[in-house]
């Protein structure tokens, strides 16, 4: 276990974290500001990945695939809000859970009808398939560095947008008191629709970035949904800053735990016990973390003000 390996694993954790943030950012706004429980957020990841993979396959250009998939996922979120979601705002949370769980099944089936049940072919763009030496003799895949860069850029953009712009101020006001905001002449319905579409779009971007790394197949976003729920609970529901910090923490804890915990256990227990308990314990780490945060900070690390 060398320091270069720890550095490399930290980059891996960072990359997992920013991907998680892209999914969680929209989810925390939808849950925190719109007070809407949206379980089909993983489907937005899948939709983004499929749009990008399909356009990349048709055009042969990865960047064109991403460029076209972004407005398409935004539009899909916009249309979904208009057709379905806006009718559910006044329902209680349990009904929202049922309806959006139904949407998961609907989207998985839709993708299966459209593209078949098999995973789509997708690979790295040739220009990003090389390696970057993060330290001498420590090559790191260029694409994954790119993912970290895009994730950080998105995080900065969301932060500046929410805290510095006029629309961002409306978003914060809408979260605080929707009736009063509406009375002041802000079209809260359009505002919610835009938040929802933007959230869908960021989740879609996560899917587009993951496409070349993982299997593009129906249901591919669902494992991310559970983790991003953990992220927004740790970070404080409704807080983008909290989601960012919590996503990085969860990414790092999950990655480093998975890699180093079995080795650490082997120092204490015999090999067979360590091999059995290590992976099991590592996969529980983030949930243990969530439980600890909930005990000491029930509203999360950075509760949204208001």
């Amino acid at each position, binding site marked *: 276990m*060398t320091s*270069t*390996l720890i550095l*490399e*694993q930290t980059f*891996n*954790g960072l*990359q*997992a974290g920013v991907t998680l943030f892209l999914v969680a950012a929209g989810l925390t706004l939808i849950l925190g500001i719109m007070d809407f429980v949206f379980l089909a957020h993983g489907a937005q990841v899948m939709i983004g990945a499929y749009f990008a993979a399909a356009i990349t396959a048709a055009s042969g250009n990865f960047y064109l695939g991403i460029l076209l998939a972004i407005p398409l996922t935004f539009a899909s979120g916009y249309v979904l809000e208009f057709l379905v979601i806006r009718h559910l705002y006044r329902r209680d949370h349990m009904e929202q859970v*049922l309806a959006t*769980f139904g949407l998961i*099944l609907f989207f*998985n089936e839709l993708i*299966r009808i459209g593209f*078949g*049940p*098999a*995973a*789509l*072919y*997708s*690979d*790295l763009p040739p220009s990003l*398939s090389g*390696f970057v030496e993060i330290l001498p003799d420590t*090559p790191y*895949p260029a*694409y*994954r560095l790119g993912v970290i860069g895009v994730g950080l850029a998105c995080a900065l953009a969301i932060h500046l947008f929410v805290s510095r712009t006029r629309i961002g101020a409306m978003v914060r006001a809408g979260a605080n008191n929707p009736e009063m905001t509406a009375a002041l002449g802000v079209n809260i319905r359009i505002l919610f629709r835009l938040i929802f579409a933007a959230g869908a779009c960021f989740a879609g971007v996560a899917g587009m970035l*993951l496409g*070349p*790394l*993982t*299997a*593009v*197949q*129906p*249901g*591919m976003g669902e*494992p991310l949904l559970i983790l991003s729920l953990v992220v927004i609970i740790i970070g404080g529901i409704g807080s983008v800053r909290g989601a960012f910090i919590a996503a990085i923490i969860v990414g790092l804890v999950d*990655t*480093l735990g*998975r*890699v180093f915990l*079995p080795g650490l256990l082997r120092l204490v227990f015999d090999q067979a016990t360590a*091999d*059995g308990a*290590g*992976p*099991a314990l*590592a*996969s529980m780490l983030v949930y243990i973390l969530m439980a600890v945060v909930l005990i000491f900070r029930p509203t999360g690390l950075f509760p949204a003000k208001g």
Partner: protein
Amino acid sequence: MKKALTIVALAAAIGIAPAHADTVKIGYMTTLSGSAGIIGKQMQNAVELALEHKGGKLGGMDAEVIFADDQRKPDVAKQLANRLIKSDRVDVVAGVIWSNLLMAVMKPVTRSDTLLIGSNAGPSPIAGEQCHENFFSMSWQNDQTPEAMGKHMQDAGVKSVYLMAPNYQAGKDMLSGFKRYFKGEIAGEVYTKLGQSDFQAELSSLRAAAPETTMVFQPGGMGINFVKQWKQSGLDQVSKLYQVFSVDAVSLPALKDAALGILGTQSWSPDLDNDINRKFVADYKAKHGNYPSFYAAQAYDTILAIDHAIATSGSKDTDQMRAVLAKGNIPTTRGLLKMNSNHFPVQNFYLRDTVKDADGVVTTKVLSTVFADHADSYAANCKF
């Protein structure tokens, strides 16, 4: 959420018209939804193709197949098995991809005096102490394929290997089977999360360990993820990759060139040279546009076995069909299949390479026979 899924699973199970007296009814259980749905779809395609080849009759009787979607959930599988036996009154229950699901349906089916013919999973308890005379496997026992890989790597003079498999029963069975025949050094043994999609962290550790070879078991979508990320991380320069059940016709369309040259072992391959296999592969490709996987071949063989049992005994009676199947010599895509005393096949295991066919499609090709007539190591513990 679990309740809802169960209801959906029941609703998704497909039924076909009711049967009459001289109709043989088969309940075929597989996973048709979720990320493993592609495997079940291939198996369903193969079952339908087998029925087509037999003119809709098995052993001269009208045949009816009820497909049941187990959603990859043991509790759903158990409910479906009970429904197939008690309300659909099927003569044979067949299929089942996953070891944990097979364990769940084993008792309800075999104890109701119904034949259970497995198309894929082969957990060790069912081959040994918990075996039952009403169960037949048309695939293999879990340990055998990695045993062949271990034997090949041992014979090839490999000194050290790094092992990786998902953290569940089949993952552990696979690695213990491998170690039964590979006597070199185990440079590392890593258990990943079942269903894991990003292996970058494990691959970073592997690069640091720089083992001579790596042997993985990552079935289904996990195989796509693993092999993709292996190539993308440039690990080919660090270690030589071997695999079982991770590169096949299910994952190859998503991997294409990334999988070229990766060796694996298997008891079937699309290029096995016999009449039944040639017809199966050619017709499957013509109908569905891609190569069948070993899952599909075993599903096809399952229907051939039922056909053989009824044709030879002239009856769909459980006792009579069982007597025929226990004798072996079942015509399949793997030639005449022999049966061991625990009702698992005794068969060849081949070393397969991943190559391009004449049309440039990536597929697998037999390089050599690692084991001829290989029996599993649990049969001695099986007493009916």
